[in-house]
């Protein structure tokens, strides 16, 4: 059981002009499942490897349970890690793979046996204990990697995109297994992924990173409902939010003939240094397809994705002289045809406003 604290942790690779991780401040609570998410190259894996002790920390500190571990080697940090490519020991059996860490710690044989068997039962690996990794399927290998971490009973679990080598169906299945397992064991977990759906479904809290800088760290719901800036708004949610920078009036953002209303405070904040523009966004599911007379924005349909449960409609509309692309989620019954013109009307009070130049949310 442990807390993890990043205090201004920085990693600057020699020969690069900007840090891979820039003054990261993050508090992870005891027993929490925290997900680090962001596009590739955002520094999420580096942050995790800094916590693991596999990467140097060039500035700031990292604490586990309020103990400074910044300069400790990995083995003194009492952590366990699951790697993206599993990193199993190929010359050892499944049992030996899981027992390796305990053996190095001189744990008595009888206890190793009990702990390995218990973990194997949890992960349905009981029948494979004498197999070598190469005789296992991808999903089984992934479970062995999990098992190797579980038998350690460490202070913190670190997981570096553990699901990205599984096929789609297995990924969804394993996703819920890992989340369940974590809540059963109650071990603090830091989980890295580039997949925002994984982040939203698994994490108690989600930290979004971009270019080595923490953008926002909050519960999945808060990230979704009140993204702190344009990047988070666009990154979280699938299909992505429709975000456009449009002209600003006293009432709000001008969307063709339609106006997305803003509060007086929002308008004032947007004015400051905003160059007469404001960035507004609405989620695909926060709008309706209406008839021509109800004052929607005319959008020509380019593509319709039938998901079975609903449909995503992709289209373009002429706004402020330019062609802008939009996506709308709709019910299957009202699915339009290709080339058809539909009228899109965002639900009032469900849109987001950001400063046009800084990208910061307007409260």
């Amino acid at each position, binding site marked *: 059981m442990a807390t993890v604290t990043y205090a201004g942790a920085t990693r600057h690779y020699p020969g690069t002009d900007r840090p891979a991780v820039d003054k990261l401040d993050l508090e992870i609570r005891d027993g929490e499942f925290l997900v680090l998410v962001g596009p590739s190259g955002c520094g999420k894996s580096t942050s995790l490897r800094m916590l*693991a*002790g*596999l990467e140097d920390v060039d500035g700031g500190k990292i604490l586990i349970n309020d103990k400074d571990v910044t300069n400790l*080697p*990995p*083995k003194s940090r009492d*952590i*366990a*890690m699951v*790697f*993206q*490519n*599993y*990193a*199993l*020991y*190929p*010359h050892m059996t499944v049992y030996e793979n899981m027992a*390796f*860490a305990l053996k*190095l*710690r001189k744990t008595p044989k009888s206890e190793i046996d009990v702990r390995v068997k218990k973990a194997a039962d949890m992960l349905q690996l009981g029948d494979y204990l004498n197999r*070598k*990794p*190469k*005789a*296992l399927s*991808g999903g089984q*290998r992934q479970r062995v990697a999990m098992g*190797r971490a579980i038998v*350690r009973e460490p202070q913190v679990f670190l997981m570096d995109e553990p699901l990205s*080598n599984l096929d789609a169906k297995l990924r969804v299945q394993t996703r819920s297994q890992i989340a369940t397992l974590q809540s059963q064991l109650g071990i603090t977990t830091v989980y890295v992924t580039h997949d925002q759906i994984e982040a939203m479904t698994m994490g108690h809290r989600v930290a979004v990173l971009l270019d080595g800088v923490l953008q926002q760290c909050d519960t999945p719901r808060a990230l979704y409902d009140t993204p702190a800036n344009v990047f988070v708004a666009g990154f979280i949610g699938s299909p992505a939010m429709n975000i456009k920078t449009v002209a600003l009036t006293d009432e709000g953002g001008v969307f063709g003939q339609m106006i997305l209303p803003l509060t007086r405070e929002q308008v004032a904040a947007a004015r400051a240094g905003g160059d007469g523009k404001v960035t507004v966004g609405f989620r695909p599911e926060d709008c309706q397809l209406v008839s021509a007379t109800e004052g929607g924005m005319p959008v020509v349909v380019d593509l319709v994705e039938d998901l079975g449960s609903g449909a995503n409609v992709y289209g373009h509309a002429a706004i402020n002289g330019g062609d802008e692309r939009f996506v709308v989620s709709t019910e299957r019954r009202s699915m339009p045809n290709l080339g058809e013109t539909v009228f899109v009307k965002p639900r009032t009070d469900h849109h987001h406003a950001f400063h046009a130049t800084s990208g910061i949310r307007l409260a």
Partner: protein
Amino acid sequence: MKMKHLVLTLWAFVVTTPLLWAFMSSFKTDSEIFDSPWALPSAVRVENWGRAWEQASMGKYLLNTVIIVGGALVLTMLLGALVAYCLARYTFPGNRAIYYTLVAGMLFPVFLALVPLFFVVNQLGMLGTYHGLILVYAAYALPFTVFFLHGFFRSLPSAVAEAAFIDGASHTGVFFRVMLPMARPGMVSVAIFNFVGLWNQYLLPLVLNPDPDGYVLTQGLAALAISQGYKSDWSGLFAGLSIAILPVLVAYLLFQRQIRAGLTAGAVK
């Protein structure tokens, strides 16, 4: 496909025929060897082998060779693996300089080194000793071993080493418990290569191993061929030759089954 088989068959024929012929001749009498070189021996004359083993001391030379080559091989593989691993997986100042110096050793003609080597070994009092030859052999085989294993260790997934570090292994532990077992196919390949090379080594012992009691097989064979002069014992020579060849063949057959590519399969995705 057919062409490939034809070429391979031809190649196999070219390689095996002289071996089989020498082996067959070792059971013939001298006159049979010259009168009917392609015919099978009229009777299996095992006494040729006995003569080579006892009178030509091939037995003793075999023992000498096994000790020297075996010792040199163990030393080369241990040192070579350690050096290659450090150079391949750790960055430190001078890393490349050390690597290139070692690799340059492969390019250096051994003939140029012979005379100074003789004086060095002589002054160390190691001329004609087991340990003297073992050290020289190991130094001789090290450059290629490091070169080969360096590439091999580079290709091993670093995530596995990291996993071992997190599991609590020390640097030595990671090397001996995880990385070395993973490098086994490479180790076996380079060990076979070194074994064959050192077993057939003639020039170095010729200079550094002057005592007839301490001869290795290659020197013994040469002595056997030369000492015959006019009273030739061709069948004995072929028997001695076969004695020298057989261990290499056996070693190769045993080990080649162990060279299995794909030993690392299953480590990472």
